[in-house]
């Protein structure tokens, strides 16, 4: 097989991210402590360039390059841009926090960009090995980021928990992949799909491997009962890392699930559908009910993530193009909402004071009514109240679930989202109805202020005009 440079064209964005990370690593060596802001500028502008490149390279029919191990299709374009935009937002949110804590070092950006690269590789993976490579690149960068604040023991504890459970999840996934490799004789997803279609579900080894693959996906998403790491990691990690960890990787996890379950094992839909039904129902139940008992807002949002994962699974398990589009829409929208929610926590955290208790948000409306309104939008959106986009995402998922006749599942989902509404409302209540403990106005950098406004308005506008994003999601599976 000859090497054709044209094959590199679809992966230009990935190359650009790698180059960007390398540049930062080098530039950082020559920067004095007071000039570390340059890192931020390079990272932000670099990401903007990469977003542009992704748009330029993207579009058109799907292409499979690098001997079948890499794919660029409409879905990967949209997901990559979403990952890049959310990562960009999290950089902007984190700027002041990192500066105030003396964490403004090149390594933060390099590690984050490596994670971004890992996500992009996952999104475009067309073979088991590429997928696993991307996954591990993401995971290893995140382990290090969680422990980024070296002197903070709770961060180290969180990183340890995350590492042990994450490694376990990766191991299970790898084990499942090896089974599938054994049964199908190929690592490439297309070939696996053909082998599965030929053998069918009669082959016990395939179904056996599928079980482990689903468990691995469950770990990476943080679905119940593989969710144990989520609240602990969120609680222990520094706020900017939680912001990053809690948002963009959900999009990549969706890609992981889609590539494996649909591209690879679409023929086994009947088998994995049942598994996902169980995972999503218990995720919805545990996530929404346990979140009520939390007083730490990071833990609360962690359980909220778990419940949202239940919704993403609902869309996936429908197994129809509408279902996939709905799940993809949901994953992107969730990442945006999470970026807004955690972003506000990052913005509010001042020197030596990490905002993580619910009480810290008390009376935010008195201190800064614009930020308060944006946070309320995020909360209403997570609760799924129109006219925010969170409602549209839930509507699409419910549409997909009811279209395959599982209306009882839709009833369960809406029942738990009513329970979930309670703790989101409690945050709004704390912001609007309680008197603040500190009265001084919120000091927020202009960048972060713009980022939160963009997030909040996007949540509102996409809720009013969901077609803007939905069209792309549906086109990805047309």
């Amino acid at each position: 097989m000859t090497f054709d440079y044209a094959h590199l064209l679809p992966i230009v964005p990935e190359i650009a991210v790698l180059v960007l990370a390398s540049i930062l690593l080098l530039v950082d060596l020559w920067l004095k402590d007071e000039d570390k802001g340059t890192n931020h500028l390079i990272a932000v502008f670099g990401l903007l360039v990469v977003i542009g490149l992704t748009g330029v390279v993207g579009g058109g029919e799907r292409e499979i390059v690098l001997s079948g191990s890499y794919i660029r299709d409409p879905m990967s374009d949209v997901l990559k841009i979403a990952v890049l935009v959310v990562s960009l937002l999290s950089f902007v949110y984190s700027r002041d926090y990192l500066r105030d804590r003396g964490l403004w070092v090149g390594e933060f950006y390099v590690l984050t960009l490596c994670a971004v690269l890992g996500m992009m590789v996952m999104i475009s993976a067309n073979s088991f090995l590429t997928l696993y490579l991307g996954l591990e690149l993401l995971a290893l960068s995140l382990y290090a980021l969680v422990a980024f604040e070296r002197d903070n023991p709770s961060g180290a504890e969180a990183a340890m928990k995350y590492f042990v459970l994450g490694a376990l999840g990766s191991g299970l996934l790898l084990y499942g992949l090896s089974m599938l490799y054994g049964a199908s004789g190929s690592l490439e997803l297309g070939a696996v799909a053909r082998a599965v279609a030929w053998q069918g579900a009669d082959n016990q080894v395939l179904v056996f491997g599928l079980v482990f693959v689903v468990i691995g996906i469950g770990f990476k998403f943080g679905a119940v009962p593989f969710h144990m790491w989520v609240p602990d990691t969120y609680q222990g990690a520094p706020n900017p890392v939680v912001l990053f960890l809690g948002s963009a990787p959900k999009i990549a996890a969706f890609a992981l699930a889609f590539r494996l379950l649909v591209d690879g094992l679409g023929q086994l839909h009947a088998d994995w559908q049942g598994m996902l039904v169980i995972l999503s129902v218990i995720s919805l139940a545990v996530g929404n009910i346990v979140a009520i008992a939390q007083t730490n807002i990071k833990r609360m949002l962690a359980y909220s993530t778990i419940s949202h994962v239940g919704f993403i699974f609902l869309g996936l398990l429908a197994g129809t193009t509408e279902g996939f589009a709905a799940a993809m829409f949901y994953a992107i929208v969730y990442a945006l909402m999470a970026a807004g929610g955690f972003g506000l926590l990052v913005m509010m955290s001042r020197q030596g004071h990490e905002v993580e208790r619910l009480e810290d948000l008390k009376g935010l409306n008195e201190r800064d009514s614009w930020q308060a309104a944006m946070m309320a939008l995020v909360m209403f959106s997570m609760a799924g109240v129109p006219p925010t986009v969170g409602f549209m995402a839930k509507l699409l998922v419910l549409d997909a679930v009811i279209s395959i006749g599982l209306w009882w599942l839709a009833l369960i989902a809406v029942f738990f989202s009513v329970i979930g509404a309670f703790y989101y409302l409690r945050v709004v209540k704390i912001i609007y109805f309680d008197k603040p403990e500190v009265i001084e106005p919120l000091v927020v950098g202009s960048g972060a202020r713009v980022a939160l406004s963009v997030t909040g308005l996007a949540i509102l506008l996409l809720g009013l005009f969901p077609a803007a994003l939905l069209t792309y999601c549906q086109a990805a599976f047309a």
Partner: protein
Amino acid sequence: MQSAIPVLSLSIWLPIIGGLFVLASGDKVPGISRWTALGFSILTFLISLLLWTGFESDTAQMQFVEHATWIPGINAWYYLGVDGISMPLIVLTTFITILVVIAGWEVIQYKPSQYLAAFLMMEGVMIGVFSALDAVLFYVFWEAMLIPMFIIIGVWGGPNRVYATIKFFLYTFFGSVFMLVALIYMYFKSGSYSILDFQQLPLSLTEQVWIFLAFLAAFAVKVPMWPVHTWLPDAHVEAPTGGSVILAAIMLKIGGYGFLRFSLPITPDASATLDWLIIAMSLIAVVYIGFVALVQQDMKKLIAYSSIAHMGFVTLGFFIVFAIFNRPEAVGGAVLGMAGGMVQMVSHGFISAAMFLCVGVLYDRLHSREISTYGGVIHTMPVFGALMVFFAMANAGLPGTSGFVGEFMVILASFQADFWYAFLAATTLILGAAYTLWMVKRVVYGPVTSDQVAGLRDANGRELLVLGTLAVAVVALGVWPEPLVEVMDASIQHLAQHIAVSKLAAAPAAVAALP
């Protein structure tokens, strides 16, 4: 019929944009936000009058229709239109909003711009609920309504406001999500989200019963019907005056409107099968809640319970039609019952708003809603006292006021359905008079009971303007309900004919069951 100028869109979005302006004007100079809010609310009212003047009352077709692409991916459209049922409710909304803006003028000192903005946005969203003909659009407006109300009660409410507002939100949210599932289910049956298509959709009886119950969960909570009414007294007691007014005058009507727009036409056979349930719930509301109102110590709670009893009349009027259909000699009663329910809704919009505003006037002075705080108010506030007595009479259904018209029509119709329905419904004439007049007797009449009451000053010009306008409306509707009945007539006739025809004959399951 496509309209030349988008009147409905204007009435929805103008107040919402106005709300944004008011929000942006901030609280540094409170006068700006007040006058902006007043300007926008009057402008919206004037625009909504175009609906009334341009309305063709001889057709049941949707009018002022707007149809534009919204979410092609799920076949949801930006589809608006009104008929004789929704149009009067829209005008009621825009009318009441002006009064709410004026009523909150000096009273609200804490963040007035946010307060007024919330009411303006609320207005737009409520008009959206009444005019949406696409189920997704309807649901978006329906739920979006909760957000401003949640904030209004929670921020400007009384001491127990947090409990009340969260209870309000969760109750209504819980009711409506099941409706959402029903709407999506029908989308897959009919291939569109158009409410008019839903109304023509053939459904088997089992499907209809499930869909009916899902709608009932949403609308019964909103109306509210016994036994899911418990959020209302809490919400009313804690809400600021303006919040109570909007809640009683408009939001409760949205539940009644839902029955007419969704439950009856979409699931006529389930409604006919389960009409005993609704009638029983309505009669319990009329009788039992009437007694509950009698023992209240808190004026707002008393009016809240009286609202539940009056809304019982509305649902009774809507659902006795099936009993009337069984008696071929009395078909005219069906239309009478539904028209009575509609008149009752509009009339209750005026009267409950006025009653809550009266309580608000007293509360602003003495900061108490307890009946026992007052006594002999007429001696120090003669003009206000007279108005309050007038509205109390209207609430009790005095002939000549609007309160009488709707109740009378519903009672008349229920006689054609069943004597005992009418008998139980008519107890309201006694109970309603008892609880309202007894409250008036204790608050307004009698000797002056305390120094506080002795120091009261009579209602000021602003308060008199608001109450006087409502008094005119109550009398006008009471002595001359004809214009209102006329605009509704064609739509209600059409609805009665529609629900008289069973959907089961057309349903595939029924066809298959034939030999």
